[in-house]
């Protein structure tokens, strides 16, 4: 497989993410993706109901532009750089997937299990919990904690912020529960 299409090893990915953070720092900005959700909630009229959502969204247009770029980047990665092989997952995780009945979702170019994440699943309990409740918790929790993975796990830890370490521990408590307890239960309903 050629270099354009094959997935990147962890050290390339990690270095590249740090580079993005420094590009933003040297532009006088802070790396925090979920702040965009607050901006959109403000633009939807949130300021009428909540002081927290009453913000000057024009000051945050740079981040919305960054978000538009992230969308385009995803499209470019799909169109020109898509891998033509299935993801190289660990054998122990492949047996976990097997116990969840998702082995067949590991397909060339696919990054998520499309048998769980599709529009018809939105009519089932599993789809509603994963997609709608999951999304809601992401947006609610990110603002409650004052940041998401980019703001706390990357920027915050890089700046040795104790609050970010607490937040990341919280991320893992929630994620470990969902992945190890809730998922096996939900998928065997």
């Amino acid at each position, binding site marked *: 497989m050629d270099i354009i299409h094959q997935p*990147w090893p*962890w050290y*390339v*990915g*990690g270095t590249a993410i*740090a580079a993005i953070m420094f590009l*933003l720092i040297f*532009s006088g900005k*802070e790396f925090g*993706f*979920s702040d*965009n*959700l607050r901006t*959109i*909630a403000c633009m939807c009229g949130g300021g009428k109901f*909540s002081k*927290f*959502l009453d913000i000057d969204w024009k000051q945050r247009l*740079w981040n919305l532009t960054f978000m538009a770029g*992230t*969308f*385009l*980047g*995803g*499209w470019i*990665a799909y169109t020109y750089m898509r891998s033509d092989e299935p993801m190289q*997952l660990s054998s122990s*995780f492949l047996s976990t997937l097997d116990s969840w009945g998702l082995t067949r979702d590991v397909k060339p170019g696919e*990054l*998520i*299990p499309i048998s769980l994440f*599709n529009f018809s699943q939105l009519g089932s309990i599993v789809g509603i919990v*994963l997609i*709608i409740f*999951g*999304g*809601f*918790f*992401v*947006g*609610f*929790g*990110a*603002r*409650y*904690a*004052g940041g*998401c993975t*980019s703001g*706390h796990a990357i920027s915050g830890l*890089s700046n040795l912020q104790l609050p970010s370490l*607490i937040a990341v521990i*919280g991320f893992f*408590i*929630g*994620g470990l*529960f*969902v*992945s190890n307890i*809730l998922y096996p239960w939900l998928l065997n309903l």
Partner: protein
Amino acid sequence: MKFLQYLLYGILFGIILIKSEVASWFRIQEMFHFQSFHMYGVIGTAVVLGIIGIQLIKKYELKDFRGEKIVFHDKDKSVARYLIGGIIFGLGWGLTGACPGPMVALLGYGYVVIIVAFLSATLGTFVYGLLRDKLPH
């Protein structure tokens, strides 16, 4: 256009999230099962380089592209909001297998259904704004 540089950074970020598989539900679940080093390697590398770089910026008082001093803001001290908020975020991260950045990259990648998770996340932020004064921080 003065935002062009941010569009470019965003494009790079989207490509990075996809090509390093950070946006993959499979990688997130694998991470939460401690069944692969990949995600820990990505986040660990970014944080180690981030710590070194930020220490250097502080030590040498480096200026940004516009020639202004770079300042870092300390986060407010608290335990409750970070722990409770963090756990709620973690539930969502585990369920969707994606945090906000990857959601947008996955949308661009062609997983249209993720728009529902993204809109739901926006609603979550909206509801947080309504309840904020009643929550422990």
